[in-house]
């Protein structure tokens, strides 16, 4: 039983979507009116219409799409590397309890190191190539995945694990039948978090280092004072981020739904 007020939106999903839409529309209208009414200088905040026009102009150029492609390429490659490495290391550490205890302090120390600390290093090693971006993306995304996999490993039902051992399951079999099913939802959470962190770092690397992609186009727009274009590109990065988030949640829900039903009862 929940307080009645909370029940209402859930009963009309259409109503929620409508409210959400009205919120977005409100924002667009606000950004249109504020500079036009002179409350904010239109040099700092161009009205929505001008931003959208700049967006249309950009979308008409090939260079824009190349930049989007560059950003997404760096994102995808970096994410893939980070996920594979994160899952591999996480499962390895998880399967051997001694490793878990020994590596705990190291993980806790390396994890909070801000990836931007590596920017100067990246510049020296790779200049403004894809390599720089990948260095940052992989570093940041790897920890997201690893931490989640370790949570998943910690969540394994000890009774299930002991049962498997008593049946003399090999380490590989234990991983496959006990560890992996429990860790899988966490892996997906890790991928989702890593996906958005990867985008942030990719764009950051491009912005600060000048590697190819949306970030560097934004930097150029700023230095050449093309303000509406700059805003338009920022909106694009936001849309990319939202799309990635939604796609990740969608994939998570559907793959795990299949997974749960195949497994039958969840151990938790």
């Amino acid at each position, binding site marked *: 039983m929940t307080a009645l007020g909370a029940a209402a939106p859930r009963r009309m999903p259409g109503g*929620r979507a409508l409210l959400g839409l009205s919120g977005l529309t409100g924002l667009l209208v606000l950004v249109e009116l504020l500079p036009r009414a002179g409350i904010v200088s239109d040099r700092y905040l161009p009205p929505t219409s001008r931003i959208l026009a700049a967006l249309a102009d950009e979308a008409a150029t090939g260079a824009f799409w190349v930049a989007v492609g560059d950003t997404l390429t760096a994102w995808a490659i970096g994410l893939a590397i980070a996920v594979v490495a994160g899952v591999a290391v996480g499962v390895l550490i998880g399967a051997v309890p001694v490793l878990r205890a020994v590596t705990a302090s190291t993980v806790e120390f390396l994890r909070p190191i801000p990836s931007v600390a590596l920017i100067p290093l990246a510049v020296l090693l790779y200049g403004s190539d894809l390599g720089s971006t990948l260095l940052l993306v992989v570093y940041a995304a790897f920890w997201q995945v690893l931490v989640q996999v370790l949570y998943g490993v910690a969540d394994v039902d000890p009774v299930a694990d002991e049962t498997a051992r008593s049946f003399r399951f090999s380490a590989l079999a234990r991983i496959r039948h006990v560890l992996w099913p429990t860790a899988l939802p966490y892996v997906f959470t890790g991928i989702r978090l890593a996906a958005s962190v990867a985008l942030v770092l990719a764009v950051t690397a491009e912005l600060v280092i000048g590697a190819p992609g949306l970030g560097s186009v934004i930097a150029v727009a700023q230095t050449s004072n093309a303000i509406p274009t700059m805003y338009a590109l920022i909106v694009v990065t936001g849309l990319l981020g*939202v799309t990635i988030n939604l796609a990740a949640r969608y994939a998570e829900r559907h793959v795990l739904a299949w997974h749960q039903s195949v497994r039958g009862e969840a151990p938790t």
Partner: protein
Amino acid sequence: MIKRLLLVLGLPVVLFLTWYAASANSENFYAPPLRQILAAFADTWTPDRLRADVLPSLARLGAGYLLAALIGIAAGVAIGAGPRLRAAAEPVLEFFRAVPPPVLVPVIMLFAGIGNGMKVIVIVSGCVWPILLNTVEGVRAVDGVLSDTSRAYGITGAARLRHLLLPAASPQIIAGLRQALSIAIILMVISEMFAASNGLGFAIVQFQRSFAIPEMWSGIILLGLLGFVLSELFRLAERSALAWYHGVRDAQRRS
């Protein structure tokens, strides 16, 4: 006790020694011997230098983080408490959260110039979203029975906020504060790399530009240490603030 110490320090010490040994005869310009880096560390980060560079960085970080927390929690409670407002605001907030925070630096530089204000605003603009969204979620998910009990006993208004909403949402809020801390550190460094005259990020970039590689590495290590220390402090604070929450979870897990 010894065993615990070994577990905690074992691997880090091994890695450190390996790095030291492996790089001892390094000729690589970009990867100098660890010995050199440590020497540079001691030479560079004198108390004066720390005061001149690290303190301003920390001050800006602190100001931005605190401001983001205040705004995020206040707005989060207001939005979270009203289902219609929440439904309307959610897509807008999710959009703003999805914009990579460093990308806003050029925009904010337009408004706020290149001084300390700009850096604090940059930090706030990036940090506030996880705090806000987590607060909204935490307030929304307050237990219905607890909420009804409060209402039945006449606990409304400010008392409801203080005794029900904030404590009930605190696990979520603190999770948001955790995410915001990482973002804050990143933005602190980035904003200094863009436009600054002091600060840790500024110093590291200066070293890199003048090819003072061991010094650059020492700065990176210092930044890493900073991140680690702040993270540990946060963990300690969280453990005491959420002692009740961990207790509840343990009790549930045991039953």
